[in-house]
């Protein structure tokens, strides 16, 4: 079973943190189809957060078709995220490595690389939305 944690300083809203942690666990194969998620009561008792936050996160995941609630039993994983994308990981990682080494050759330090990546990432994301 997955164990949630919260980073209060991340600036990401708590409900989104929960959603991402479930997706991450699905991607990494830590959660598989049929696994049960902790109950809302268990999550709030552990994290001391608003129950509505957990409900909202679960609703979002349910909407994405990743989990399903069975009344009176619990909430279960209905789909995994690992199979399709994992295969692509190796190739992408290899390309990223090469890009990183080119960046270093160009004289960028860690912070500059991170800033460059994040600004490009955000710009691309915004273009996609637009």
């Amino acid at each position, binding site marked *: 079973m997955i164990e949630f944690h*919260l980073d209060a300083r991340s600036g990401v809203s708590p409900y989104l943190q929960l959603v991402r942690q479930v997706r991450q666990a699905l991607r990494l194969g830590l959660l598989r189809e049929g696994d049960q998620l902790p109950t*809302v009561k268990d999550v*709030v*008792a552990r994290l*001391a957060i608003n129950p509505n936050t957990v409900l909202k996160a679960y609703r979002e995941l349910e909407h994405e078709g990743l989990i399903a609630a069975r009344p009176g039993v619990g909430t279960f994983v209905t789909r995994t995220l690992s199979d399709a994308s994992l295969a692509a990981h190796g190739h992408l990682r290899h390309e990223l490595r090469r890009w990183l080494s080119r960046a270093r050759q160009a004289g960028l330090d860690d912070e500059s690389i991170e800033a460059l990546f994040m600004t490009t990432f955000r710009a691309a994301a915004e273009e996609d939305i637009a």
Partner: protein
Amino acid sequence: MTTLLRTRELGKRYRRRWALRDCTLDIPAGRIVGLVGPNGAGKSTLLNIAAGQLAPSAGSIEVLGGHPASGPAQLAKVGFVAQDTPAYAALTVADHLRLGARLNPRWDAAAARNRIERVGLDPAQRTGTLSGGQRAQLALTLGVAKRPELLILDEPVAAVDPLARREFLQGLMEAAAEYELSVLLSSHLVTDVERVCDYLVVLVDSHVRVAGDVDELLSSHHRLTGPRRDPGTLPAGQHVVSVSHTERQTTLLLRAESPIHDPAWTVSRVGLEDLVLAYLSPPTAAGRPALEVLR
């Protein structure tokens, strides 16, 4: 949807001084409401009125559709954990549970016993020897086992250490999830409020400065930075919460119902803590040191 708390120009006066004034709120049921503000802003007064402990001097108030001090039935619907979580020092933990059982028609004895056991309280211990955190847990147990529809807590964790505070909030949220409790709590710790609350009320100088759903507040408030200019020239629908200027730059925190398109501004989102701090500072005090917090 039923209303948790509905007040109209509610006020409370002590001799000449108004502790709370013109307080008008509509809070839907099922919420976990955080009441923040500096000491003496009227938080306790509002909570005590809502719990039926204090009679208002002006205006009207409805809690869960009833008048707060209308009788035992209303008292049974509303749990109240008073500031500093008082307990009878000479009585034991078990005595307090018995007190709860005798004085509350819907008392959940099993839940009370379980909670006491889980938080590690010795039933035979006198409450005079409990730590602040343990006493807070006992008070929470009494409040929860009463099985109210609304639990009101007045600065329940103001005087306890961080670990006990976390444990207290865990217990509170667990109860809120388990019994579908509405919660109304005051705190001066915005981080706690941010974690547990989905509705926020900011009280300053005995007046309500802002109240609303936390997500809505966060999405309608923006921090704008840009070349120095007069905030009076902003379009309608944008309300300045706080302003600070340097020689060339103006930083605004404002509330706007619609997105901001003015390209002169760099718009960024505002965290709940900054939002609360902006409201706690006087609105007209542009450029005062009190606004340092905004940078």
